[in-house]
Structures are given as structure tokens and as C-alpha cells.
């Protein structure tokens, strides 16, 4: 599985057998994408941190049922994504995502090279269009493009079939294309 450090398997196996230090190492190596996932799904830093902590504790409890040798990252992300999803539903609040670049700030905030394909205004339009997507379509876009997960990882994280990932991705892209072209 792409993006999976080679020692994930060994660490996960040690953690499965009750090694807390191994689990801590796993948390440290995945916490950035885990937090990004939770933040993008909840839209709130505080909710995301709560979801991450609760999800990681649940993952520790669930580890005995983790299938040895299978990809650890999507398994972990799925548990945290479930927490984030449930938290968002119960809290019912989410802030709209914003571009780090704000209104054309120079320096660090400059768009990445591939971002040059769209002007700042068009990028903000696109982001707003993502925000208007149905939740299920938005989650697909979040996983596939904002988190850059593979189709297989996305399927695991969202608990859906790979075919559903493909069809929802196509639907979301069609809606976004329509929104930014009109």
C-alpha cells in the first residue's frame, strides 16, 4: 500500500500483542494525516483533536482484531474518520474550509506549482463548490484529492466498495466541473 512505512507491519504486530511503545510509534508516524482527516471531516480543530484522541484509543482496543499484515494506515484512518463523522453529526457545526493563501498573500502562501493551473479566484470558487457538494461526495473528494488516498484506501476509510468510490468520484467531479464552468 502506498505511503505505508515499511515498519508499519512489524510495529502493528507488536502493538497487537500489547506493546504500548510500538503503538505510540505508530501514532507518531501517522498523526499528521490522522489529524488532517479528522479536521477535514469535522471542520473544527477542537473536534478534530477530540476525534483523533478518542479514535486512537479505540484503535488500541480494536488492535487484537486487526488482520496481521494488512495495511495499517487505512484501518486507523477509518476508525478516526468514524469518530470524526459521528462527532460532526452530534455537534452539528463545521467551519467552511479556507485557503491558506487567503487573498493573494505572497511568500509561503503562494500556490504550489500545479496550483498555477487556476487563478486564486477560481481556486476559491472550486473550494466553495466542494463545500456545496453532498456530504458523501465531499468525503470522496476529501479522501481522494485533499488527503491523496488511493481508491483502495478510500474504500477502507469510508467503509464502501471500490466500485462505489469510482462512481462517487465520477459524480463529484462532474458536479464540480459543472459548478466551476457555469
Amino acid at each position, binding site marked *: 500500500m502506498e505511503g505505508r512505512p515499511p515498519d508499519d507491519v512489524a510495529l502493528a504486530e507488536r502493538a497487537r500483542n500489547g506493546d*504500548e511503545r510500538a*503503538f*505510540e*510509534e505508530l*501514532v*507518531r508516524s501517522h*498523526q*499528521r494525516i*490522522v*489529524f*488532517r482527516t479528522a*479536521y*477535514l471531516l469535522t471542520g473544527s480543530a477542537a473536534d478534530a*483533536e477530540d476525534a*483523533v*484522541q478518542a479514535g*486512537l*484509543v*479505540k484503535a*488500541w*482496543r*480494536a488492535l*487484537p*482484531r486487526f*488482520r496481521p499484515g*494488512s495495511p495499517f494506515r487505512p*484501518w486507523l484512518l477509518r*476508525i478516526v474518520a*468514524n469518530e470524526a*463523522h*459521528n462527532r460532526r*453529526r452530534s455537534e452539528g457545526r463545521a467551519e467552511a*474550509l*479556507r*485557503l*491558506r*493563501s*487567503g487573498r493573494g498573500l505572497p511568500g509561503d*502562501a503562494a500556490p*504550489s506549482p*500545479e*496550483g498555477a*493551473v*487556476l487563478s486564486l479566484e477560481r*481556486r476559491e470558487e*472550486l*473550494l466553495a463548490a*466542494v463545500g456545496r457538494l453532498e456530504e458523501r461526495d465531499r468525503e470522496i*473528494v476529501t479522501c*481522494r*484529492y*485533499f*488527503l*491523496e488516498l488511493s481508491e483502495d484506501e478510500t474504500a477502507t476509510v*469510508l*467503509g464502501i466498495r471500490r466500485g462505489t468510490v469510482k462512481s462517487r468520484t465520477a459524480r463529484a*467531479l462532474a458536479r*464540480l*466541473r459543472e459548478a*466551476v464552468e457555469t
Partner: protein
Amino acid sequence: MTELERALVSLGHELEIPEAPDVAAVVRARLEPRRGRRTIRAPRRLAVAVALVLLAALLATLAIPDARSAFFRALHIGGASIELVDELPEVPAEPDLELTLGQRVTLAEARGEAGFDVLRLDDQPDAVYLGHRGTVWLLHGTPARPRLLLAQTPFHSVDQELLLKKLTAPGTQVEPVAVDGARGVFLSGDPHFLLLLDELGNPVEDSARLAGNVLLWSHDGVAYRLEGGFDRERALELAQSLR
């Protein structure tokens, strides 16, 4: 990758996302040492004898087609496979129910997504989840203290697509029942082991748990599973009240 997809990836790099807090140490401090795991054991010789007697009764009562092997010990119904075993696998003492159930949704969302008529009891469920294989779960009570749990899973071919596997120990009673004319079984007594299977027939990692009394039946392409602390009559009453 299309231009739109490249633009989306680029947006992802430019999103204002707070720096991830270092939670590794905090989380580690919250970890509980692995608790004892429980197994349900039974004397092996007796277990086999009871299992075979029970199996014979089931085969006779339900007119199951010929056993597929001399040691056939499974009953398939409503997308589920019930297997008689001598000893149940180990599961954590307190499995997390929400991990099994999946994503929390509203009943309306579940109905929109399911592709079949999602039924409910007279009482509104306290929570609805959408899980693997399109299963809609209606929870009455809380994940920590569930009172009733109803699972509805669409299936196409019972023999080829096992949705879940139940392993029963000798202390579990398996009684054939009819729910509105549909064939079903009622499992009671000792807890049984529930294992959800994904689209490829592999066990879903975090779904194993011990279940209580369960009524299992299928109707019109949907497998139903009602779990709670009820007796057979009450379970059938609840099943027949589904709308």
C-alpha cells in the same frame, strides 16, 4: 489525472489546516493495558456430540439440502452462516459496538442510500448507522448499553455471499422459527460469536463480538437480524411489528 483533479490536489496543499498536535504521549497515557480475553469453553467430546445432535435436528426440521460433506456443520440462512463449533474464538471483553456499526447517519439518509425498504420498529431508533455491505443498523439504547439492535442487509445470493458468520457454542440454543412465513432461526442461551464478512468474504477486522439473543430471518432479498435481551415470543412480536 485531469486538470480538475490536479487543481483539487493543489487545493488540498493550500488548505488552511492547523498544525497537527502531538498526541502520541497523551494517547499512550490513556491506553489501558490489554485486558483479559474470554473464551467460552466446553468439553470437546460432549461439544461434538451435542453439535451433531443439534445439527441432525436442524437438518430434519428445516429440510436443508444434502450435507455438502460428511462433517457438514453449518446452516445458511438469510445471508448468514451459523456454524457449530467446540470453542468460540477470543474477543476483547468489551468490544466497541460503534466500530462494528459504521458511520452514523439519519434514518432518512439510510433510506436514501440503502436501495431497499428500510424497516423500523414502532419506537424511533436512538441511532442509525450505515455499515459494510450496505447494512443499515438501527440502535435502540446507546452503543455502551444497547437494548435492541436491528440489522438489515441486502443480499443477492445466500450461498455465494455470506454476510456474516455466527459461531455457536454448545450452550447456545438454535430454534427454527417462521417470521411472516419466512424461514428464520432464534439463537438464545450462551452468547454466540458474530463475524461480519466484507465483499470478498474476508472478516472485517473490527467486527467480531459476542452477541446476545438473536432472531435471524430473510425476506425479499434482505437479511434481518434482531438482537436484544428478549425471549423468542417477544422477538417474533417485534419482528412482525416492523414497518
